[in-house]
């Protein structure tokens, strides 16, 4: 059996996306900036896509800027918010310790330029605390950037409340919603969001296209110098086929949001319940505030890359936050931020589902993972040491 359970990394393109993209590749080859009929045709399609994306977020079309990826949108939003802050003498930014590197590395760059960044802790459940955010806000805070939902552990942050607090204090609020858009309700008005990043390939659109939502009151300047595309804010001829595909995929995801979330959550909960049966395992992230499709576990006594590759041999595509999968020496910063010791964080496994998965696939995963964990533990000296110390080797960690 083959199971693709790495949808937080990327998704398969939907039929709607392919069907929007294919004629665009054949026929809509005009440059939307051209005045002639082929240009107008492409521009008209682009406008339609922009309106569709805006509708899905409850934004207006002029607040949507298409980008090359979610990372670009994160870089752009944070850099611009910092620049706007600096104009008013505000050089303090608040974020948290489990952001994606697209955010963290942009913040590191700003720190080198003299900005001060407060990284809020996330506690054992991976959730930012509002009272800690309130206490961290200062008169010179220009931006709060907190992700909508986490890519590794699936924890959903109290975005609406964070946004409300920021609005009350007159601070810009950006959220990296790359893992949320298309999977859970995102409403920039109700959620008090000023800037939001999204990425197409996380919701069945092709790779190479994303968007930045930026509230019209924010005086956004261009990030990429060039022509007058994207209302002069982002030079570069628009990737029409990818943008149309993204709009189609997003419309489809948003139209089926509730039923997909219900289906995917049911599979997620079955996976969590099944994997908890493995002794000395733990489910990472908040049990209550969790994205529909993400399951993150640590299995003591084994290492994540081995687990991942043994599952790959069994036909299951998954992911791990272990150091060995990233090529660095330290395990995932997200798992460490939850307070997990290195030796446990090394044994992590992320399974991420989409509406394309089935319960049969979940059953297959639940058959394979315990077997692979058992095999790897049998050859692990760490597990042997643990067994020697344990009174009841089959105590369940959770």
């Amino acid at each position, binding site marked *: 059996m083959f199971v693709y359970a790495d949808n937080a990394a990327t998704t398969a393109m939907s039929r709607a996306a392919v069907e929007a993209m294919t004629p665009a590749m054949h026929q809509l080859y005009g440059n939307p900036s051209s005045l002639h009929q082929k240009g107008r045709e492409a521009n008209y399609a682009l406008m339609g896509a922009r309106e569709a994306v805006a509708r899905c977020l409850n934004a207006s079309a002029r607040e949507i800027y298409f980008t090359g990826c979610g990372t670009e949108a994160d870089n752009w939003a944070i850099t611009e918010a910092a620049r706007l802050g600096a104009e008013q003498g505000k050089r303090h930014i608040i974020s948290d310790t489990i952001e994606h590197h697209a955010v963290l590395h942009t913040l590191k760059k700003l720190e080198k330029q003299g900005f001060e960044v407060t990284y809020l802790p996330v506690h054992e459940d991976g959730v930012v605390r509002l009272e800690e955010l309130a206490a961290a806000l200062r008169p010179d805070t220009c931006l709060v950037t907190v992700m909508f939902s986490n890519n590794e552990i699936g924890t959903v942050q109290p975005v609406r409340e964070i946004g409300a607090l920021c609005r009350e204090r007159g601070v810009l609020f950006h959220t990296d919603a790359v893992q949320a858009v298309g999977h859970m309700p995102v409403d920039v008005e109700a959620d008090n969001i000023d800037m939001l990043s999204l990425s197409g390939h996380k919701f069945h659109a092709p790779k190479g296209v994303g968007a930045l939502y930026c509230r019209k009151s924010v005086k956004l300047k261009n990030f990429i110098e060039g022509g007058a595309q994207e209302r002069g804010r982002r030079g570069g001829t628009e990737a029409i086929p990818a943008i149309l595909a993204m709009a189609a995929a997003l419309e489809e995801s948003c139209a089926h949001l509730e039923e997909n979330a219900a289906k995917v959550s049911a599979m997620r909960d079955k996976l969590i319940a099944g994997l908890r049966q493995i002794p000395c395992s733990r489910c990472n992230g908040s049990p209550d505030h969790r994205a529909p499709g993400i399951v993150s576990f640590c299995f003591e006594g084994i*290492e994540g890359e081995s687990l991942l590759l043994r599952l790959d041999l069994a036909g299951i595509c998954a992911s791990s936050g272990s150091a*060995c999968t990233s*090529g660095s020496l330290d395990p995932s910063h997200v798992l460490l931020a939850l307070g997990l010791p*290195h030796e446990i964080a090394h044994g992590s496994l992320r399974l991420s589902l989409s509406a394309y998965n089935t319960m049969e696939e979940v059953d297959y995963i639940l058959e394979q993972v315990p077997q692979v964990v058992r095999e790897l533990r049998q*050859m*692990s000296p760490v597990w042997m040491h643990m067994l020697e110390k344990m009174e009841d080797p089959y105590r369940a960690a959770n």
Partner: protein
Amino acid sequence: MAMEYSEKVMEHFAHPHNVGVIEDADGVGEVGNAKCGDIMRMYLKVSADEIIEDVKFQTFGCASAIATSSIATDMIKGQPLSEALKLTNQAVVESLDGLPAVKVHCSVLAEQAVKAAVADYYKRKGLPYEHPCGACGGEGCCGHDHGHEEE
């Protein structure tokens, strides 16, 4: 970037040789630490004329840690101790048809595990032996170069 493992590495990872414990081992060596993400423990059964009659290993670590342990045990099984001591990490890497650069430390760990097990054999016999990994004093080798920054 996805890591590319050779077919040989995947073969040893999927079906490792000499996995297990030797209860009445003549020498046991353990190197690495769990914090770094890899630990290897090697068990030797040595004959009176210092031939490695049997070898088993247990490894906590990534695919390359398991594969290097497996091939290292193959390489020293049936060999005299003097030959086992000549095992180098480069020889381990070559036997596996190469390792990704970030995984070369696993081969260092395999070499150290063999040498630690031999050292333990000599120690038990009360024979003089200089630990070949002088830099770490034989304790807590993990093969990593912690001086390097993450790429």
